[in-house]
């Protein structure tokens, strides 16, 4: 992969914080402006944002998981396969227990198990990560196609009920946008600060980041490099599987072959776009979810459906291109893609 491992000239902490605050405030200002404009044009912004955030949930989950995997030095290109398997197995589990939570759990477990297979090949057997991930992708999609046939197209009637937070969800626009979701969305959003905190402020996170930057340093310091990597890859798989289950159990209510439509690949792109930071993952998945929701608005204007369908994929590409134009070096974990051994 064409990622550069160089260090950027870091200005002092205060300047950086100031820049971040400025960026945040200006982003907020732009958002407020956009919302005001849309409202005045008669768009129901509240439900638009609601849809956007819901759409972004599976992507957010998968990206968060892949961030952890890549932070530990492993690129798992098989996300699409794990998501697909999570969608199929999640649906099967949900039907079997007539309970969506069981479906979600089943999706997580299937994703984690697939990730375990991948991890064994890539960590213990030191296999090349890129083609192994491609194999996982094909296997996951094929596997889900085979097992999912039993539930293909069947509507799941016991899906999650929306859980609007009382009082807060009644606030115009913001209320619907932030406080009116099925539980899994809240879960995904809550994971963002938690995973950020763990990665950057705890010892486990320090261990993970060290393993991804310089596994020899971690090994020498007594950190079990293999164990860390297995853990992170499986977390990635579990979250990808959970995201897949969200597709079928929570969002659509049924399972169809190929329903993940490449969103797993978008997660890979978003992992880079997020600069391997859970906060960035939130931003990226919101962007994608927003564009995806937006294409439906544009359909209303009479633009061709399928051309609009290209939009999310193109926007992902363009977003990455813009990022690369501004940042000369992205700061990928330095040991990414390299298997570790003590010899």
């Amino acid at each position, binding site marked *: *992969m064409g990622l550069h491992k160089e260090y950027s000239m870091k200005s002092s902490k205060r300047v950086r914080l100031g820049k971040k605050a400025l960026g945040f405030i200006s982003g907020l200002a732009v958002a407020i402006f956009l919302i005001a404009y849309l409202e005045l044009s008669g768009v129901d912004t509240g439900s638009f944002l609601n849809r956007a955030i819901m759409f972004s949930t599976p992507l957010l989950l998968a990206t968060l998981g892949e961030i952890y995997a890549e932070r530990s030095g492993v690129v798992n290109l098989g996300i699409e396969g794990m998501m697909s398997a999570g969608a199929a197995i999640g649906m099967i589990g949900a039907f079997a227990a007539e309970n969506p939570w069981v479906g979600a759990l089943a999706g997580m477990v299937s994703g984690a198990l697939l990730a375990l297979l991948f991890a064994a090949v890539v960590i213990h057997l030191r296999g090349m990560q890129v083609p192994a991930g491609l*194999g*996982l992708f094909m296997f996951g999609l094929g596997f889900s196609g*085979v097992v999912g046939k039993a539930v293909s197209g069947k509507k799941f009637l016991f899906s999650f009920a929306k859980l609007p937070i009382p009082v807060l969800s009644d606030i115009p626009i913001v209320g619907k946008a932030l406080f009116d979701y099925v539980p899994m969305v809240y879960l995904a959003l809550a994971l963002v600060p938690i995973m950020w905190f763990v990665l950057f402020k705890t010892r486990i996170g320090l261990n993970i980041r060290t393993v991804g930057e310089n596994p020899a340093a971690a090994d020498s310091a007594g950190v079990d490099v293999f164990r860390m990597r297995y853990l992170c890859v499986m977390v990635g798989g579990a979250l990808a599987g959970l995201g897949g289950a969200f597709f079928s159990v929570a969002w659509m209510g049924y399972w169809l072959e190929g329903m993940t439509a490449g969103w797993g690949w978008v997660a890979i792109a978003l992992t880079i776009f997020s600069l391997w930071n859970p906060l960035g993952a939130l931003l990226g998945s919101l962007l994608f979810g927003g564009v995806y929701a937006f294409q439906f608005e544009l359909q209303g204007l009479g633009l061709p459906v399928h051309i609009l*369908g290209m939009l999310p994929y193109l926007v992902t*590409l363009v977003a990455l291109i813009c990022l690369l134009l501004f940042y000369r070096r992205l700061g990928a974990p330095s040991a990414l893609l390299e298997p570790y051994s003590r010899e």
Partner: protein
Amino acid sequence: MFGLKMEKRAVSSPWVELGISGLSIVIALTAGALLLLLQGFNPLRVYSILFSGGFGSLPALAETLTKTIPLLLIGVGLVFAFSAKVWNIGAPGQMLMGAIVAGGIGLFLKLDIPASAHIALMFIAGGVAGAGFAVICALLNAKLRLDMVISTLMLNFVALKLLIYLLDGPWQGAAGFLFTDPLPPQLYLPMLAGTSIHYPTLIIGIAAAISAHIFMRRTKLGYEIRVFGENPKAAEYAGIHKVKLITLVMAVSGGLAGLAGVGEVLGIHHMLKLGVDGSGLAYVSSYGYTAIIVAWLGKRSALGSALAAFFIAGILSGGQDLQTILGIPYALVSAILGLILIGLIGGAILARYKLLFRGG
């Protein structure tokens, strides 16, 4: 505690490589068998239908050969790309672009030239379309260091959406479904009697395989590609031009994928429709993805890929039979292929290490 130990080999050997390929296939099939058992199918019955559907009779062999054609073309192209460690995952999209361009020319470009020239033009245009589509990614990679995997993949979906748009919109046939009107009959490729083997494309494929083999082993550029793929830093010191190489391998692999797309349109479907790239319901069955396994199983050598293409085409044909006879979704084929690839990657370590059992 009983332990499995690995010891580094002193020398590597080509027989070991062959053994690993065989072992990976066996392991993949075994794992597949387990999954089938869990689903309530009899693996032995499944595999016998799979292999007879691919190789068991003359019609089966014909079908396999038909499927070999696109796999061969794309596989050879991917050998180029993978030898340079350029991860071109965009073959499905490049193939679709070739098909779209050929379909467009066939349906809408009325030219007063002999049919063979018209067909040749379509092949060239399709190849250029596929190559161009791939070179976009090469340039994004060269100028912006945009990851090849991501750019090629996103463009796959863009190409697919483009196809659907055309089929549902301006190019929709009189029938009103997601396919165009049939192409004029003079633009059909000739086929071997009684089969759907469109042999001109096959000839192109075989020629491509042979030239690729000679190219990679015996020419300066082939040497440069191998050096670059194995150690890009050493290549830089040796004065090898990175951007030129990446663009070259992408153009070749994209072009060959485009040619495969043209072949499918002109040789098999005689129209533009969904599934022209080999995919059914799930996009993963596209020849473009399957060819990745072909290239890898062929040990990234052009001639090896030719053999692998035939073998995997057999699995695809057999998979179709499985669907019609036992009702097993065609997706099983992708699952098996994915397992084969994983097995190959995992097994590669055996080329560097010997397996020893050690007690105590």
